[in-house]
């Protein structure tokens, strides 16, 4: 088993302190998602209370670990660590039994609990390693702060790789599927008045375009246009509406439709600054009469068709320029290894 990060750092005199463990914020989310069993060391070396402290020296040195659980038959009776060993060495008491120096007040964590539980226990108990037990209280592993650091780093790397793989796969969609005309259609239902989730559909659309390998500038333009259109559905429609995006290798067609109330004067609606938005919409930073004007600036072609009492259809079209095309992101020319 290779060294844990903590053990590597430990030798350089740098360690993760209890204060750090309480303050770590980047790992917070993962600390709740990851289970202790995901990050713990399973390959555990155990000692017996009747072994001598000399055998502790050998075990720690050979396995390059900083502590080990002490088992009396099947039951966990203590933990012996480097610190305990140093006390024994200071006393010139290498032949003493482990039972004399081990911590017998054993704090354990459960394998199925989230990592945050172990972090809290570390911060509270000031120990460096915790035995991990299963539902039946059987010892199944050991966990150190180093294991947690490594587990979290691995999880972060995995997240990153998953996104890379998604991008790789999606970006080949238009190349791998052969037809006379390939298009991908995305549909989203937008709720009237839902300011809290407003922009979520647009957020998904922008991400989808980036995964498909769209140039970032193009994804941004589409993102801004659909976001304004999505907010228009939230602000103005009677019953919400539908946002539909059709992605093709040479163009992107975005469309919103609703069933009312409709716009009495389309020309007026297109005037910069003209607004009929509620004060609620305005308090959200919208409804300044710039939405449709913004959309027009982002797209090559915009069509607004509305009948009062029936509904509104907004069509937005962006053509990819000759130098713009969907392509795999740099570095994704080969399938990333998992």
């Amino acid at each position, binding site marked *: 088993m290779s060294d844990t990060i903590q053990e590597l750092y430990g030798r350089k005199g740098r360690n993760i302190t209890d204060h750090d463990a309480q303050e770590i914020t980047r790992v917070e989310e993962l600390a709740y998602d990851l289970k202790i069993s995901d990050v713990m060391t399973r390959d555990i070396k155990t000692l017996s209370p009747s072994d001598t402290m000399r055998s502790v020296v050998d075990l720690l040195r050979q396995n390059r670990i900083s502590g080990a659980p002490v088992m009396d038959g099947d039951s966990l009776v203590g933990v012996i660590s480097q610190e305990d060993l140093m006390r024994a060495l200071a006393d010139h008491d290498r032949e003493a039994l482990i039972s004399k120096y081990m911590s017998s007040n054993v704090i354990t964590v459960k394998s199925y609990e989230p990592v945050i539980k172990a972090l809290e226990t570390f911060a509270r108990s000031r120990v460096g390693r915790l035995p991990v037990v299963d539902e039946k209280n059987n010892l199944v592993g050991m966990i150190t702060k180093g294991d947690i650091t490594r587990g979290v780093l691995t999880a972060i790397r995995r997240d990153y790789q998953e996104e890379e793989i998604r991008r790789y796969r999606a970006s080949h969609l238009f190349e791998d599927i052969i037809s006379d005309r390939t298009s991908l259609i995305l549909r989203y239902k937008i709720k009237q008045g839902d300011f809290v989730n407003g922009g979520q559909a647009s957020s998904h659309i922008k991400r989808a375009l980036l995964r498909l390998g769209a140039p970032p500038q193009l994804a941004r333009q589409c993102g801004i246009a659909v976001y304004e259109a999505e907010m228009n559905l939230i602000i103005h429609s009677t019953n919400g509406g539908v946002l539909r995006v059709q992605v093709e290798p040479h163009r992107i067609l975005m469309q919103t439709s609703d069933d009312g109330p409709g716009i009495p004067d389309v020309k007026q609606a297109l005037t910069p600054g003209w607004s009929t938005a509620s004060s609620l919409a305005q308090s959200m*930073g*919208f409804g300044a009469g710039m939405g449709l004007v*913004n959309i027009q600036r982002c797209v090559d072609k915009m069509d607004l068709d509305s009948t009062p009492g029936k509904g509104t259809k907004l069509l937005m079209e962006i053509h990819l320029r000759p130098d713009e095309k969907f392509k795999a992101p740099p570095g994704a020319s080969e399938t990333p290894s998992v």
Partner: protein
Amino acid sequence: MKLSEIIHHAKGTVLNPSILINDYEIIGGCGSDLMSDVLAAVKPGAVLLTGLCNPQVVRTAQMADVRAIIFLRGKQPSTEIVALATQENIPLISSDMGMFELCGRLYKAGLHSYESNWIGFHE
């Protein structure tokens, strides 16, 4: 200008320190409470100064590739807003300064306007 310098000028507090931001390079600035104005004018890579404090600020930033948001006059976004920004990897900063003062300070420190004057995307 590095985001850490901007935070220093703003005497700001980072609200989602879990995002590693010290070396974020900010190319320009934009100040507005109107999200449509931001969407219309901001160039990618800017810091956004705003007095508005709701989830749409983060969505706007995400759509327009804004790199960081500064909430002015000590406004504190809700935990939902902070979570959304963290998910989208957008640093949120709270500053006690007002719009005019912070825009002025950052401009004087060499951060230029990143608001285009009605130049469309397809020029």
